[in-house]
């Protein structure tokens, strides 16, 4: 059942993103292809590291974000790819998954620590939501392009990190028997699915915001 639901949910997530992008376009320039965005961000990271324009904590946070995003991609692929072939995560994929998990977790911690203030809801967010007619793009556009959805996703992801991590790390301790171990494994799978769905939304929104800022 998990396999079916997770595949279905991921299809829905990507479907919603596609529809949203079609209904509320965020602009299109030749340099804003996927490849263009990757190059742009690599340039930004290098600039951030070597120019020293920002404070070290900001630099660390941005680095952690991108390393975390990369780790998430590895965890997502290693975690969900076996579902397609209907097998359990095992072998070298499992080792890769377990290797990047702590990296991702440390990155998540840095991002949460460094970004909590930025992603804190403000009175302005309330005003935007109370007067959606004054903004372009309807409610869908407002949520994504004013950063409100990004903030919501940030906090959901921060909270989901806890069951996602604890469900696995607690099972490594000699505390819980087989039934609880099975429950923890299920909890890890389901929380990973929810986390992945929101993480994909978050990445989409952040990319939109980056594109809009370029405009």
């Amino acid at each position, binding site marked *: 059942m998990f396999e079916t639901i997770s595949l279905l949910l991921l299809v829905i997530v990507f479907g919603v993103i596609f529809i949203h992008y079609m209904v509320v376009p965020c602009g299109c320039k030749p340099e804003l292809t996927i490849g263009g965005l990757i190059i742009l961000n690599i340039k930004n990271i290098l600039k951030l590291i070597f120019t020293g324009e920002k404070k070290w904590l900001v630099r660390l946070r941005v680095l952690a974000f991108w390393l975390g995003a990369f780790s998430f991609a590895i965890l997502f692929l290693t975690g969900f790819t076996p579902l397609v072939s209907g097998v359990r995560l095992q072998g070298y994929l499992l080792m890769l998954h377990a290797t990047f998990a702590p990296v991702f977790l440390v990155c998540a911690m840095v991002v949460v620590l460094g970004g909590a203030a930025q992603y804190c809801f403000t009175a302005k967010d309330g005003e935007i939501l109370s007067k959606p007619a004054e903004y372009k793009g309807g409610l869908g556009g407002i949520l994504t392009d004013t950063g409100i959805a990004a903030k919501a996703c940030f906090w959901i992801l921060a909270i989901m990190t806890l069951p996602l991590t604890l469900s696995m790390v607690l099972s490594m301790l000699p505390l819980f*028997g*087989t039934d609880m171990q099975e429950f923890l494994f299920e909890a890890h799978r389901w929380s990973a699915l929810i986390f992945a769905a929101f993480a994909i939304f978050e990445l989409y929104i952040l990319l939109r915001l980056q594109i809009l800022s370029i405009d």
Partner: protein
Amino acid sequence: MLPCSFNCGQGSKKYMMKIFNLIIVVFFVGTALASSEEGVMVGEGNDANRSSPVHLFNLKDEAGLVIRADSEKQQPFSTKKTCGECHNYDEISKGWHFNAHDTEVDAGRPGEPWVLVDSICRSQIPVTARGWQGTFAPQDVGITPWLFLKKFYSHFPGGSYGEMEADNPEEGIRQGISGMYEINCLACHNRSSYEDQSLAAMQVARQNYRWVPTASSGLATVEGLASSLDDFYDPEFDEGGIEVTYRQGIFDKEDKVLMDIGLPENDSCYFCHSNKDLSVSSEMEWTRDQDVHLHSGLNCIDCHRNGDDHMITRGFEHEGLAGTLSCEGCHIADHNGGKPIANRLGAPAPEHAGIPPIHFERLSCTACHSGNWPEEQAGQLRTARIHKTALHGQHNMNQRQPHIYGPVLMRGTDGKIAPHKLFWPSYWADASGEDISPINPEKVLESAGDILKEEVEKQNDWRPLTDEQITAVLNKLRNGENAPVYIAGGKMYKLAAGDKLEISEPVAAQPYAWPMAHDVRPAEQALGVNKCADCHDSKSSFFYSELPVDGPLVAQGGQQFINMIDLQGLDKRYMAAFNASFIFRPMLKFVAFGSCGLIALVVLAYVLKAIAAVTKAGTEEVE
């Protein structure tokens, strides 16, 4: 002319009534007789009363005649006639212990075979008609039922090969003297202290087949050797022979005998199902514990049960209804909301705290709980049946070969890693394509005895064998289109052009292994009690214990080994990397808990901040 017709008178009517009555009587008597033939025997069925019935009965000989205290020449009693009086002997003879010859019986998972050992021939061949992969049926190795008894006499319970008519005239003559080796019911069911299975083995060795239960039960003394009697010996007329003397006072005034018959006790099972751990010296045998179940008050038959058919449950998981008497059947709680079966026989449900459930998909329960704790090198065992242990006095055999290793943690036929007993077959054979047919050692010795009987000093119990000797023997065994081969130490040796030896490693040369379930260790002595590193370590015995490749080959250049992981069907590189990753486990846990703690604090802080903001906003609204 008929005495009656439809228009007959009053007398004829009476005559008709008599005939009618006769038909009725014949019908009822016939029905009664038929029903008594098809009826249940006294000892069959189970009325669920758990008391043991008293076994006071007449002993009967082979002819079914009652043996009397005052008989001039005492006869041995026949279990078929005596026990079979009340119990269905034919049905029992299809039971697991007595159907070894029957190829139609579901053989289940591999079990302990008989091993045909010939040290001069350097042969040790797994023999059984059960058809387990890697074994050979007796007839494929030139073993007739008569020879089977001669070879494997000591721990054989009778029936099966013991009751087969000999085809060979010479064996037929000897069988006429020795009689049939009927099922020795008393070996398991006689609870008398007189019951002596070692004596039974001695009687079988003497070919006193029909006298085995009589002698071993202690009801009588049996003197004489059937094996030494002349082919033309006639018990009716000839002197000498075998004499039976029943113990004084065992017959009552009706010539009945009281026997302490009941369910088998552990001692009875142990005679054939004991193992000697060679890492423990004979002097220190007292330090070994029994299976934890026995210490907890269970008996062998609590798990290894049977009905009237004597199809003993073997206790593994895929055994149908009998599978409920496996480890899982008793210990694992079933929380499906149906009728609960957990805690059967008082079995505690294991917690298995901290052990990921994948272990239970990949490992059998016995992997962690049975046999000796795995050491750097696989231990060596001797089993009662193969090494003929427990034969007392001058008949003590205690053979040294084959070398049986265990526990060898390898993948079983069900795909799970489990502890096994294992030995390396070695034999001379005819090879035709992939078909390998072992040659009976006696035939090998007929052809190449001069080479194989050369005096040599034994090494590790083997008479060593050089490549030159193998070549010479193979040349002698060459016969027409046959391609003789020698299998030993996991390799097959075959003659190639120019009398050179061609060496390969076919499946037929693989070791023969069968799962070991006992002795079960208590939970506190199970693998994993010292956490993951019991197995997930770069040097753990679970994966890297060395298994000697056992054989007589001198050219091997000393003892060779393989690791258990070679028999586990696992990717060695992956397991090495995976085991090495456990070094980082503590760090992973530290990072995970630390990160989660900080994230939780941040979330908590902003939740509190949000609450404060909401409270403040509410206050401002009021003001």
